[in-house]
């Protein structure tokens, strides 16, 4: 292509080679130089992409994006394009026959320009958009309060100096409406448990889009209208659903600290520049726990994170980052010798064939005093003599007595008992049947777990159910109401008394001054009992043993980040488990804390959604002793139009597919944008079908999958990708130019050449007509052997 024109173009530029400019021009008119740049680009790309260790080196700390936007790469592209432009202009005459090469090269330059525009203006990030928030209004409350509607989110509201608690207990993404008018429709339902300052808690059910169907449900009694005759228990309390407006998105691969005074709702951003992401930065070995076998290099860092906003609550103090860990978790390490009694027990459970488990028990901690689903319990005894008082068996027992009679007996609850028919109580008119037991239930509004035995009691006049609790005040009698949905609870019938002792943990460790006692109870009584000391292994039953790793009576915790060894890290979690060491110097004192990373900055802890989103602010004291909170997250950008989600649904694609072969699901977020104070019509966003609004494009990227056990749960938020894409049309135009140029150069140009050749041949042999049949010539050609 170029070669045929090279010799003619050779002479003029050679002559200009004397001046430096001419020399440079000649240098850049060299195809070899272009090839050289292409080869360098090849190596640069290969290293950046295949060997991440290079760009992730402590001195570079680059993401893929950063590596490919580093000046050496930009320079290579500029040199490549310059060489291409100069060579094309100087050595390829602009004639129709060369249109292909010119078009390709123009296309590549256009693509490079478009890409420069695109990448230099690129902003890309992501945002979760929640489906609804709950709005609370009631007398005595000035402004309405709102909180996000996610299962587990809880808020307290003070009205007339009385505290109400609101907690979203569950959501249902397809609640069937049974009322006539909207029968058959499904709504998004939110169940809020309301705990009034006095009286029993109740559930208020809210349906998105159907405020008229709001109603209260009384636990154990069913719908309020059935038991108290009106739909709402508290008619003054007005709960409604509102769109949850999302105003910011977070930019990928950035860092920022956010600060606010404790009590404020808005965060003030402090961007972090120059903090790497791949290598740990620790200045002293004392700051962390680590695996001694892992290689560890001290790499100090002291990075100032100055305030950039006017209203920064820490303006007067200096804030620095003095450590960074890519993958760590805060670990508590216990040492003995505290002033306070705090018994701690560390155990390892080993069973053959299965993986072993480690437990850490604290006798004085309500939750952590039990382990292995309540099968192991750790208690503290004031005196060694109390060992004799430990439970003798692990059985669950129902005690039954009938006042004013001799009748008083224990029923050991075994599977046989649960299946047995009604048993008459001799000497009385009652019969009973234990139908079920529920041990250690966590009930809303109770701080202690409750254990229940459900007993059916037959009296001469009726049969009712009794919930026999381990605490007498929780025992209730239940009688069915008018229909299947309503149940009436009442105080227990005094004519027959019952108490329930739940099954105790089969394995009990009892610490006492001077030792540790171990008890293993079977359902029929004591199996094993002995003293143990740390380091000892007890074979509980064949194939199952317990090892006491450590036992401390006066445990003191030391909390430091533990650097998780490389081999134990989960893949593809990025910086989810990163943390920074923040040092705040207020002038009077210096405080340091490790602050864990959280993907998004939320106003409060109601957004954690059962641990799905991190919310981990650390508290510091500001300049005037004012408490301040700090969060480690990513930079955020205000959306031009706040977004809300109307609904989220799954489409089962069947177009072109049948059930017998394949089904593909699609995920659809119905969004609204706030424009001029008004929410727009819904805009659907699906996989492969983004939408643009106000200069940003929104892409479906994550969804709130319902759990297998609760198929109507989930779908409470959607994860969207947000980004701009300036210049993609220039890029596309460049690519199309290049393709058309290639087609021309490879397939049109030879035809043009052949025609030109045929024309000249015709001219030459006008007299002596070509008798050759070209097809025949081809055939002859093909028949000849080739030397191999």
């Amino acid at each position, binding site marked *: *292509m*170029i070669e045929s024109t090279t010799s003619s173009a050779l002479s003029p530029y050679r002559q200009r080679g004397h001046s430096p400019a001419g020399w440079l021009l000649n240098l850049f008119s060299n195809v*070899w130089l*272009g090839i050289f740049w*292409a080869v360098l680009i*090849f190596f640069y*790309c290969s290293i*950046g*992409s*295949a*060997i991440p*260790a290079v760009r992730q080196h402590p001195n570079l700390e680059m993401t*893929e*994006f950063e590596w490919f936007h580093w000046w050496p790469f930009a320079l290579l592209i500029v040199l490549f394009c310059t060489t291409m432009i100069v060579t094309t202009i100087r050595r390829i005459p602009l004639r129709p026959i060369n249109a292909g090469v010119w078009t390709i090269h123009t296309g590549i330059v256009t693509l490079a320009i478009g890409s420069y525009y*695109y990448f230099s203006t690129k902003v890309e990030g992501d945002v979760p958009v929640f489906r609804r928030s709950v709005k609370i209004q009631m007398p005595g409350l000035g402004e309405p309060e709102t909180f996000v509607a996610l299962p587990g989110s809880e808020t307290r509201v003070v009205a007339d100096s009385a505290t109400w608690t609101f907690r979203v207990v569950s959501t249902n993404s397809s609640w069937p409406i049974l009322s006539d008018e909207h029968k058959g429709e499904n709504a998004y339902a939110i169940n809020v448990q309301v705990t009034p300052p006095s009286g029993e808690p109740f559930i208020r059910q809210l349906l998105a889009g159907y405020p008229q169907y709001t109603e209260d449900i009384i636990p154990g009694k069913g719908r309020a209208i059935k038991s108290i005759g009106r739909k709402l228990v508290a008619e003054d309390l007005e709960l409604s659903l509102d769109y949850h407006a999302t105003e910011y998105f977070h930019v990928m691969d950035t860092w920022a600290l956010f600060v606010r005074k404790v009590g404020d709702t808005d965060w003030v951003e402090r961007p972090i520049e120059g903090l790497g992401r791949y290598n740990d930065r620790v200045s002293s070995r004392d700051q962390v726990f680590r695996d001694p076998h892992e290689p560890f290099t001290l790499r100090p860092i002291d990075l100032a994170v100055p305030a950039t906003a006017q209203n920064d609550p820490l303006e007067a103090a200096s804030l620095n980052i003095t450590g960074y860990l890519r993958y760590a978790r805060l670990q508590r390490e216990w040492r003995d010798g505290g002033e306070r009694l705090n018994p701690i027990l560390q155990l390892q459970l080993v069973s053959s064939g*299965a*993986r072993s488990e480690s437990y850490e028990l604290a006798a004085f901690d309500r939750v952590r005093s039990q382990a292995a689903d309540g099968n192991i319990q750790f208690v503290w005894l004031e005196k060694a003599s109390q060992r004799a008082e430990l439970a003798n068996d692990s059985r669950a027992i129902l005690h039954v007595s009938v006042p004013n009679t001799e009748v008083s007996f224990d029923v050991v609850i075994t599977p046989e008992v649960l299946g047995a028919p009604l048993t008459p109580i001799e000497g009385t008119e009652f019969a009973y049947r234990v139908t079920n037991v529920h041990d250690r239930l966590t009930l809303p509004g109770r701080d202690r777990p409750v254990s229940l035995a459900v007993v059916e009691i037959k009296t001469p006049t009726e049969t009712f159910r009794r919930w026999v609790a381990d605490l007498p005040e929780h025992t209730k009698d239940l009688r069915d109401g008018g229909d299947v949905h309503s149940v009436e609870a009442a105080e227990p019938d005094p004519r027959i008394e019952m108490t329930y002792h739940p099954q105790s943990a089969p394995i009990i460790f009892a610490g006492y001054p001077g030792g540790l006692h171990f008890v293993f109870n079977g359902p029929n009584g004591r199996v094993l009992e002995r003293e143990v000391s740390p380091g000892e292994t007890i074979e509980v039953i064949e*194939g199952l043993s317990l090892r006491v790793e450590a036992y401390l009576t006066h445990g003191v915790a030391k909390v430091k980040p533990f650097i998780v060894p490389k*081999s134990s*890290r*989960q*893949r593809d979690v990025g910086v989810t488990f990163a943390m920074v060491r923040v040092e705040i110097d207020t002038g009077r004192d210096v405080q340091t804390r490790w602050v864990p990373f959280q993907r998004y900055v939320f106003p409060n802890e109601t957004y954690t959604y059962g641990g799905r989103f991190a919310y981990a602010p650390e508290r510091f004291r500001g300049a005037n002793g004012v408490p301040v909170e700090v969060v480690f997250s990513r930079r955020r950008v205000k959306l031009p139009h706040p977004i809300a989600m109307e609904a989220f649904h799954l489409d*089962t694609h*069947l177009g072109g597919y*049948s059930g*017998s*072969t*394949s*089904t*593909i*699901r*699609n*995920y659809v977020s119905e969004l609204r944008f706030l424009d001029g104070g008004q929410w727009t019509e819904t805009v659907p966003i699906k996989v*492969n*079908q*983004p939408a643009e609004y106000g200069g940003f494009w929104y*892409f479906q990227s994550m969804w709130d999958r319902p759990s297998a056990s609760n198929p109507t749960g989930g779908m409470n938020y959607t994860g969207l990708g947000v*980004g701009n894409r300036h210049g993609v049309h220039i*890029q*596309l135009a460049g*690519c*199309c130019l290049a*393709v058309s140029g*290639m087609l021309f150069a*490879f*397939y049109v*140009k*030879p035809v043009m*050449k*052949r025609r030109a050749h045929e024309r000249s041949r015709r001219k030459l042999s006008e007299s002596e007509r070509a008798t050759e049949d070209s097809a025949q010539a*081809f*055939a002859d*050609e*093909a*028949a*000849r*052997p*080739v*030397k*191999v």
Partner: protein
Amino acid sequence: MKERFRIRPIDAMVVLSIIGYAGWRSMNRAPETGDSPKTPAQQVDLAFAQQVDLTPLYKTAVQADGRLRSFESHAKRSMGIIAGARSIQGQSNGFTYLDLMLRGQAYDETELIYVKHKDVRRQILDVLAGHGDIDEQRREAIQKRGLFSRKMLMHPVVGALLERLGKDLIRTSKVVDAIHFALTASHDRFLAQNLRLIAPPGGTIDTPWFSITALEQSGGAPRDAIHAGLQTASTIPGLDEQLSENLTEAWSSLRAGWRSRDATAVNTQVEKLAQLLPLVAPNLYPSLGRLGMESWYFRSKSMTWVWLLYLACVIPLLMSIIYKWDRARTAGLVLFVLAFAAHTASIGIRWYISGRWPNSNMFEALTTSAWFGGVGALVLERIARRTPLRNLFALGSAVMSMVALMAAYFLPVQLDSGISNKMAALNDVWLYIHTNMIIWSYAMIALACVPALLQLRHRWCASWDRSTIPRARLLLLPIALVVLNYTGYRLLMHVLDDPARQLSGNTLMGTSGAFWGSLMIVLLEAMAVKTRIAAGAKVERSASGGASALIGGGGASFLTKDRPTAGEVFDGATMVLVELSFIMLWTGLVMGAIWADHSWGRPWGWDPKEVFALNTFIIFLVLIHVRLKVRDKGFWTAILAVFGFEVMMFNWIVVNFVITGLHSYA
């Protein structure tokens, strides 16, 4: 004037090394079946296995992983999870599935669970041997074959080992998870619950099917006097009572017959079940033709044996290229068309079974890419039928398809031919065009590699004949190239930071030494070539380009000249394919960017897969420009075409499996 074909030393080297490699592989290959049965009980089992005929059942539908499969395909997939692609005691997958489900305990000591990772195999065997539970001979057999018995894996010492290995998330936790999953999957209840053979009456295509055990729950008790009055109501809502009764009876008789090793009874009940099952919900039941097709397709190894047909056409095609012998050409082309037709049938059947164009996993991408190569070759053969370039495209396609299908045939574990559903993100027309365009361009790159290699062979022979290079050096050169490629690959994998492929001390030293040594040899030879050409050595003529050679004109085409040399012919064919792959690869990249733009919001994300596709393109860009500047165009074109092929394969295999990125599902 016919020229005598001579086998050159280079041919001998290639053929011998292929035979040597194949021999070495087959020596290390695991025996396909375990020990032959010895005890009388085992002989009864063997006789039973031979007499049972599950053919009617193979065509029944099972709902699994969100789609309907034939029982044959379901059993193959389940056994694949449990035993890799290994056959258990020479039984069919369907038989093993049912036997494992109905007589689970009988398999406790059978070597059943496949452990893919060789080092984990060794570690398990080490601890077992340390406990004296295994003899040397059995140990060696298991190390090779990879199948462990459940008893071995349930051994406490193995449990402790697996627990430790499971904590290493980078190296072995996936392997341990796979072992645990295989153990679970081999459980009789798991197998029974997943045998969802019963369509839900009155359901829709989204309704889950019922497992065969639903029949046991509904009326598992025999219908006789003793059991009269026991629950008979079906737990399958809407199921016709009579049908339910018949099904239950057939299933319980089958179970009873199976357990008493009564093949006749089993065969009768199998036939009965196969007739009854489609009647449960006829509107939901897939067509028997499709199920039969699926069953046949999987039983015939996904038709990967077509590689033999391709092999058969390679020889006559080579002969026709060398001798210009018309009969060899006819025979070669007829065989090629036959092989291609069979290949097309395999793609078509797969399309029919899965309901989508087969291009969504590695197996499908590879076989479909090879098929695209065949389409391209047929079109090019038609265009170039009267030029000296003919036969080369068919040959390239035959070789490429043969290698691709051989890979699928011999590596069923790595290239899983199971059919699964597609992800939502992949359901897009641009993506469809993009992936097909890309794999088509890959096929063209692979096709171009064949004439390029012939070109290199031709050059080597010319040097041998003319003795332009001392013959010892000439013999060393291909060896150095192979060593360079192999050690380069190993070192790259070492640098890639994948712990499973790290080289240790001495191996690393040796590999590096061999790499740099062979690189020196190749560079010295390249410099020698350059010096020779600079000194005025004669340079072989080359084609004017690909399409331009075919289209001709301006004296550019060698076709108008008297005698095209072999070098020109090979160069022309390489260039035709290089130009096509150049355009297709670029177009494919652009279409990928368009898809990525509207699916992820960024046309280009510097993802390894994208970067290496771009790198492949850069190699071809360099090739086209190097052709403008060098004197020996044919030689450098061949070198770069082969290198481009290597970069493409690196992208397709290493980047896909090792350097995972966003594209890792494709």
